[in-house]
């Protein structure tokens, strides 16, 4: 266990402590709490802005990649390579008239996008960007993500219900039933990873893995690979991504649950969706792909400080940035796969969706859970590679 969160990361630095002492002396009360609040606020502000930027770039990436797949150009007018397209879209959205349907439930109509945004942004608090630069490491981290992200489902359903339009209502009902159904296999897959990691804290789970693929939980034993596939499919459905984009199926439901939403209200639904995809990709990277672990311990203080000979403070910072690089690389690769799947597979029907969830994924996830539990019991939590190395070493010892 190195650092708990941003505050404890910075509070170990001498300038922080000096400033704290000075403030305590000047203001005549213990300023540790105040300093912690300021650090939390600045960090949260930075994270939100970066995530909004990633959400915007996500829409750009989606259009560019789909254009690549369909042999088109994609956006290429605004900024270099069309990179600023999302800003132009944002300006357009904010200039659009805000239409409120007369028959709609006005308060719920107002609350629905807020619920989506709150549900997505609150999950950012525990997303493990690196061992030090994480907003907070809650001891119930994984469980917290599952709980808070359910708010998005409520937002989607309320968006559909409050519009008082038949398309929206159908989309909202589909969205609610889909999101709650796929939560079951996702939860069961996550429970298996909690067992392997030995705790609900993201830091505990990531620290249980290593930098190289054979130390990741995805390749821990044969069951975990299937578990990752189940988690990934469930994750696509939870975020309403194709081939599970039934709540907003444009060819049958106009635009689904956000048919009646215009301008900025619609923009927040879209932003929430793109940020949520990034968040769930990040959770997948942390649970299965080693999270912020960097190969060969390149980010550790022993390497940067002792071997390379960097001073203490830069060594710590560079280590953190290397870890962020590792985490973001894995997450962005998963993000690419999500977009790739969207432009490759056709949409499912509602009955196929439910059959896939309840008759395939849930039993498979239950089977996996039992398999992983028995594996941990029999082999004392060792991965299959460790067992192979051990038997190899034992065999070599015999000769």
């Amino acid at each position, binding site marked *: 266990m190195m650092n708990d969160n941003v505050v404890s990361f910075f509070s170990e630095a001498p300038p922080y402590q000096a400033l704290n002492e000075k403030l305590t002396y000047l203001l005549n009360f213990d300023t540790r709490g105040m300093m912690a609040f300021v650090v939390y606020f600045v960090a949260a502000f930075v994270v939100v802005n970066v995530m909004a930027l990633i959400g915007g770039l996500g829409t750009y990436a989606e259009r560019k990649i789909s254009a690549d797949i369909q042999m088109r150009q994609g956006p290429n007018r605004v900024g270099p390579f069309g990179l600023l397209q999302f800003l132009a879209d944002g300006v357009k959205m904010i200039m659009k008239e805000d239409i409120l349907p007369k028959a709609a439930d006005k308060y719920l109509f107002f609350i629905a996008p807020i619920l989506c945004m*709150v549900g997505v942004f609150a999950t950012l608090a525990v997303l493990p960007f690196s061992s030090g630069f994480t907003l907070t490491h809650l001891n119930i981290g994984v469980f917290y993500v599952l709980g808070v992200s359910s708010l998005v489902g409520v937002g989607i359903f309320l968006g559909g219900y409050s519009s008082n339009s038949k398309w929206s209502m159908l989309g909202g009902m589909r969205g609610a039933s889909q999101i709650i159904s796929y939560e079951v296999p996702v939860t069961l897959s996550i429970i298996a990873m909690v067992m392997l990691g030995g705790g609900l804290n993201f830091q505990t789970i990531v620290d249980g893995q290593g930098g190289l693929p054979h130390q990741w939980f995805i390749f821990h034993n044969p069951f975990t690979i299937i578990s990752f596939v189940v988690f990934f499919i469930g994750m696509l459905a939870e975020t309403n991504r194709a081939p599970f984009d039934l709540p907003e199926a444009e060819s049958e439901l106009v635009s689904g649950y956000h048919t009646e939403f215009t301008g900025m209200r619609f923009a927040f639904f879209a932003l929430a969706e793109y940020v949520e995809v990034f968040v769930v990709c990040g959770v997948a990277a942390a649970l299965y792909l080693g999270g912020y672990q960097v190969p060969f311990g390149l980010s550790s203080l022993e390497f940067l400080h002792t071997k390379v000979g960097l001073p203490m403070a830069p060594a710590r910072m560079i280590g953190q940035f290397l870890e962020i690089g590792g985490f973001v690389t894995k997450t962005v690769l998963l993000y690419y796969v999500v977009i790739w799947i969207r432009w490759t597979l056709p949409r499912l029907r509602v009955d196929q969706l439910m059959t896939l969830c309840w008759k395939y994924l849930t039993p498979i996830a239950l089977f996996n859970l039992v398999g992983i539990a028995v594996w941990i019991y029999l082999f004392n939590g060792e991965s299959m590679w460790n067992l192979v190395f051990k038997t190899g070493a034992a065999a070599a010892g015999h000769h």
Partner: protein
Amino acid sequence: MPAYNLDVYMPVVILMVIAIVMVVGALLVGKLLRPHNPSELKEQAYECGEDPVGTAWSNFNVRFYVVSLIFIIFDVEGALMFPVAAIFKKFNGIAQGGLVLASLLLFIGVLVSGIVYCWKKGDLDWVKSFTLESYHHDRDQAQAERKTA
């Protein structure tokens, strides 16, 4: 310092407040920029250009409620399994893993019997399946009821 204090939840509150301020703020700023010309036609619910018929708040397919009932059972089960999963490794380290594993398997066994029951009853099918016999049975029963009435 206590072993665990609620300070670590501060970012959660900050992020939620930022999210709310972001939405409300953008809508308020937009109010200065955007046009506002409401009309009868614009404020109708979209129904492919036709006048909307009735309200959308009507009775809905009962399948959705069955799904939500099954979901509640499985979600509560997930919530109950998290603590057991979190301590499994620790107990395994002090040679008590068998105890945890047994209780876990017992719990999962009950659940599996539940899902098998649902499956057999046809509640996992979106369109509830029926055999030729059940179809004839239902038809005969309906005819008998009509005769008595």
